[in-house]
């Protein structure tokens, strides 16, 4: 298990151009939102959270094909399927690596982006925590759907059919970020945590099932 984790991290470190790409894409995409507000502070602070969530979502969507599609093409997946470790565990670890390598850098830069969107600094810590707790679900849902599309590895198809599955997370995420409650155990936050836990538990099983269906 640790070997898989180490292998995946080594792959990201040695050939992880997509991490840099996702990071730049995130900055450019949120810059688009900022520019479209024409420097109006009121508009900026209104669209800030949406801009950040959507940029995060788009960066994740565009890196999803790195999680499993490339392994499928290069044949690594065949070996993972034959290995002693259950496929569910492998998929879980692969998704965790995707989250740590692609999403965590983005979440770290998000407070800086939010300051440029004129979001008051009182909220930023809370938004940071919400993002940290909500974003795993984006990665996990993405892996699940990318395992479904192993037969047609078009990135466009993957992006299109993943978007509907992101609605609950996006809605809850933006709602929690813009919520006025500071108590992190209020109902909406609990729903967000529940959503994340649900997808984290569901995703590895569905991914493994989809891969096995694809090989049968």
């Amino acid at each position, binding site marked *: 298990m640790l070997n898989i984790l180490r292998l995946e991290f080594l792959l990201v470190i040695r050939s992880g151009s997509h991490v840099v790409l996702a990071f730049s894409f995130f900055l450019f995409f949120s810059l688009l939102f900022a520019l479209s507000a024409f420097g109006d502070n009121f508009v900026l602070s209104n669209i800030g959270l949406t801009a950040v969530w959507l940029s995060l979502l788009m960066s994740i969507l565009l890196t999803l094909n790195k999680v499993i599609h490339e392994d499928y093409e290069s044949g690594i997946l065949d070996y993972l399927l034959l290995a002693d470790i259950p496929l569910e565990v492998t998929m879980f670890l692969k998704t965790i690596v995707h989250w740590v390598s692609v999403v965590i850098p983005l979440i770290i830069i998000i407070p800086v982006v939010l300051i440029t969107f004129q979001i008051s600094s009182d909220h930023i810590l809370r938004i940071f925590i919400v993002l940290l707790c909500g974003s795993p679900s984006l990665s996990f849902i993405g892996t699940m759907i990318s395992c*479904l599309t192993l037969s047609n590895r078009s990135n466009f198809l993957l992006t299109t059919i993943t*978007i509907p599955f992101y609605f609950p997370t996006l809605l809850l995420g933006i709602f929690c970020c813009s919520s006025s409650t500071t108590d992190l155990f209020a109902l909406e936050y609990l729903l967000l945590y529940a959503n994340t836990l649900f997808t984290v538990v569901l995703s590895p099983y569905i991914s493994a099932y989809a891969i096995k*269906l694809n090989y049968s």
Partner: protein
Amino acid sequence: MKNSALNKFWKFSNPVLFKKLAKIISPLAGLIAVLAIIPSLVWGVFFTGPDYKQLETVKIIFIHVPAAFLAINVYLMMTVASIVWLIRRQYVSALAAKSSAMIGLIMTIATIITGSLWGSSTWGTYWVWDPRLTSFAVLLCFYVGYIILWSAIKPLERAANVTSLFCILGSVFALLSRYIVFFIDQGLHQGPTLSLDEEKNIDDSYYFPLILALVGFSSLFVYLLFVRTTTELNKLKLKLMG
């Protein structure tokens, strides 16, 4: 066990028997659809009084509610058919799910169009991001995604596997989004028109034509489903014969 009712039911997963069944059921369902939809619309539109507040526009209900009812229940039926495919590997159920997707999509679009026309006269706007309207937009996305996925993946078995899984997951996530938008915003849309709880139901003069319209639309769905599934089965047969 051998002759239980369930076994008799699964017998129709044999394409030949299914086509025989379709030959009996589809004309019958088509007849019921014509006999129910036309009278219910005539009754509903010409022989019921106007609403005290919404005047004549309330009569959109005779298309809006049955279409919405079908849009949701067709997805449910697709989910059940997908589960059957994943467990029992019966082509009929996969193809039934495939052919009902388009019907469900059209019902969803019909609901949205009639609803926005109704909204324009009663709410003064064609579209608001009300929970019910939002959940129909979400449902539309899942229908479109399902159809796209069917057309994108080539071997039939593989496409059926993938779309079945998509459909089951889709029903879970569509429900999740629905309850989350309800949690965020209570909305503008009126409450349920038909429910088992008697007191909430609409007035009897609307109730009976509406039930007739529901029966008509449902049998229209059954008719279309059998015709389309038979076509899909024939297509599959042609392909297998080369």
